[in-house]
């Protein structure tokens, strides 16, 4: 019976056959290849299959090397969770992707907490107990860290989900003295982890510390995210992505499992890099995002910036005329386009213009949308070919040659104040040089709303600017009607 030889874990490392760590290593390498595939859309689908294969290897290896008596229950659990996940993935709207990712992060976080608790209750099964059945010191630290990061990921992601999904107001909630509360909770977690690690082996009373760490971490995750406003959500979602990775890595340390450690490190770095990219694209420091409060000024400052300067209102007919006469059109979509569900109409307009020989390109700002790359997915969904979609640094120099810059549902990312006005809250943020285009068309619902940052935009009042005030989808449909 080979399985009696394989069912180790309890007896310790010595009993594990050599193919087991190798299989986990292969799984880890497959996960690296899954991310590597994403370097281009053409290789990405193969990459995703590597990811699935890696997961299959990891799960099967774990199942065959452990007691298979509970196999039926485990398979039921996988089938139950798997079908829920599958159905959600099939049905979710692409506009709701940020919420979905936040919800998935919360599940990873909670799973990490459950695994850490299971290890706490049954250390022998995890191979982290000494002869007396007590949990080893180093394992205590790993478990406590895994549980704490998992709990932060869970409660933070739940709040991020509620904010993104509209169950909770996107505006920041500022508790008085929150920095002191957060810092105190964080210190408490660290001190408790230390105490739990060194508390005398064999003492029965140290268990409360582990629970206290978990509870404090749940609280701090909640406290960290409630003061963060809607505009900063791309950073938050990326940050929680990173945390879910570190939680998996910490549990990988507990189990000595290479697949978990490699994956945790990959995901942790990935989330951290994405947070960095998002912060840079908004010219905000990571610390100031975490400190929270951005976006509070936006709601209150909205009335103060109204200006009496003259601006020109255009009609769909005027816009259609100029667009079909143009040689180069650059479309700058923002989150407002997604809110108005205008992406399909926009692609149709682009197609009609291309038929007429106009060179149509799309310019995407890193923070367009509610999560990194969100706008690219929305355009891809409405069948815009990805080689017509350009990143900020690749297309910004082209505006000077563009006949029309067509801005739909974006505002802050085309505001020249970011380049010139040192007192502006968005100063230093990289923006599109739309003002260099011969004609600027701005689709906006009204002159009132001024974006997240609550800053007026000089582009509205320029001679070459045409304000198209209407619902984005209706306006684009009107323009299509006038393109003959």
């Amino acid at each position, binding site marked *: 019976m080979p399985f009696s030889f394989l069912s180790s874990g309890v007896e310790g490392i010595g009993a594990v056959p050599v193919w087991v760590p190798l299989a986990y290593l292969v799984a880890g390498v497959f996960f690296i290849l899954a991310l590597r595939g994403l370097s*281009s859309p053409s290789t990405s689908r193969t990459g995703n299959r590597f*990811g699935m294969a890696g997961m299959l290897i990891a799960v099967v290896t774990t199942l065959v090397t452990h007691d298979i008596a509970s196999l039926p229950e485990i398979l039921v*659990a996988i089938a139950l969770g798997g079908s829920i996940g599958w159905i*959600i993935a099939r049905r979710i709207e692409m506009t709701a992707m940020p919420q979905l990712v936040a919800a998935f992060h919360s*599940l990873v976080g909670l799973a990490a907490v459950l695994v850490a608790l299971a290890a706490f209750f049954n250390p022998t*099964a*995890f191979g982290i107990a000494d002869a007396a059945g007590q949990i080893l010191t180093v394992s205590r630290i790993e478990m406590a860290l895994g549980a704490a990061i998992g709990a932060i990921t869970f409660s933070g992601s739940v709040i991020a989900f509620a904010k993104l999904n509209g169950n909770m107001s996107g505006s920041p909630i500022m508790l008085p003295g929150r920095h002191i509360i957060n810092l105190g909770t964080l210190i408490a977690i660290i001190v408790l982890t230390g105490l739990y690690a060194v508390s005398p082996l064999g003492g029965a009373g140290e268990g409360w510390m582990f629970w206290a760490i978990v509870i404090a971490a749940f609280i701090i995750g909640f406290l960290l995210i409630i003061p963060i406003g809607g505009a900063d959500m791309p950073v938050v979602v990326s940050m929680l992505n990173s945390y879910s990775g570190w939680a998996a890595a910490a549990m990988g340390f507990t189990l000595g499992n290479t697949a978990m*450690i490699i994956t945790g490190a*990959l995901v942790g770095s990935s989330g951290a890099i994405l947070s960095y990219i998002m912060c840079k694209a908004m010219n905000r420091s990571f610390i100031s995002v975490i400190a929270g409060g951005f976006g509070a000024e936006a709601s209150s400052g909205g009335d103060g910036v109204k200006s009496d300067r003259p601006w020109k209102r255009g009609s769909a007919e005027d816009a259609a005329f100029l667009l079909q006469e143009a040689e180069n059109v650059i479309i700058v979509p923002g989150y407002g386009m997604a809110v108005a569900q205008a992406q399909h109409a926009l692609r149709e307009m682009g197609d009609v213009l291309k038929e007429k020989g106009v060179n149509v390109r799309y310019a*995407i700002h890193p923070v367009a949308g509610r999560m990194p790359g969100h706008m690219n997915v929305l355009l891809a969904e409405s069948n815009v070919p990805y080689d017509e979609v350009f990143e900020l640094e690749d297309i910004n120099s082209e505006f000077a040659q563009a006949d029309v810059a067509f801005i739909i549902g974006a505002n802050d990312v085309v505001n020249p104040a970011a380049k010139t006005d040192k007192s502006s809250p968005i100063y230093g943020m990289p923006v599109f040089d739309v003002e260099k285009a011969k004609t600027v068309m701005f689709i906006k619902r009204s002159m009132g709303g001024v974006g997240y940052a609550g800053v007026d935009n000089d582009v509205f009042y320029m001679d070459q600017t045409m304000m198209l005030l209407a619902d984005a989808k209706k306006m684009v449909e009107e323009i299509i009607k006038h393109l003959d």
Partner: protein
Amino acid sequence: MDFISILSIFVMACFVGYYVVWSVTPALHTPLMAVTNAISSVIIVGALVAAAGAGNPVAKWLGLAGVVLASVNIFGGFAVTARMLAMYKKKERK
């Protein structure tokens, strides 16, 4: 495995992650998040160990609950990534 070997793997993997993620095209950052979500559910390994572990019913049920949660993520994460990636098309050349 001893702690130092594990730590070495972890540190190396952080560097691999750093370079691999920087090479991901910004257009695919949303699928990147979805797929990292799916692969971080490799935490299911821990949940499976707990669910299969004998001797403690509490740990077993916690493990099974963890298996359910991680499975939602694995199937959901890979499926939604595949769905997104299928949308990215090149320009049709005539």
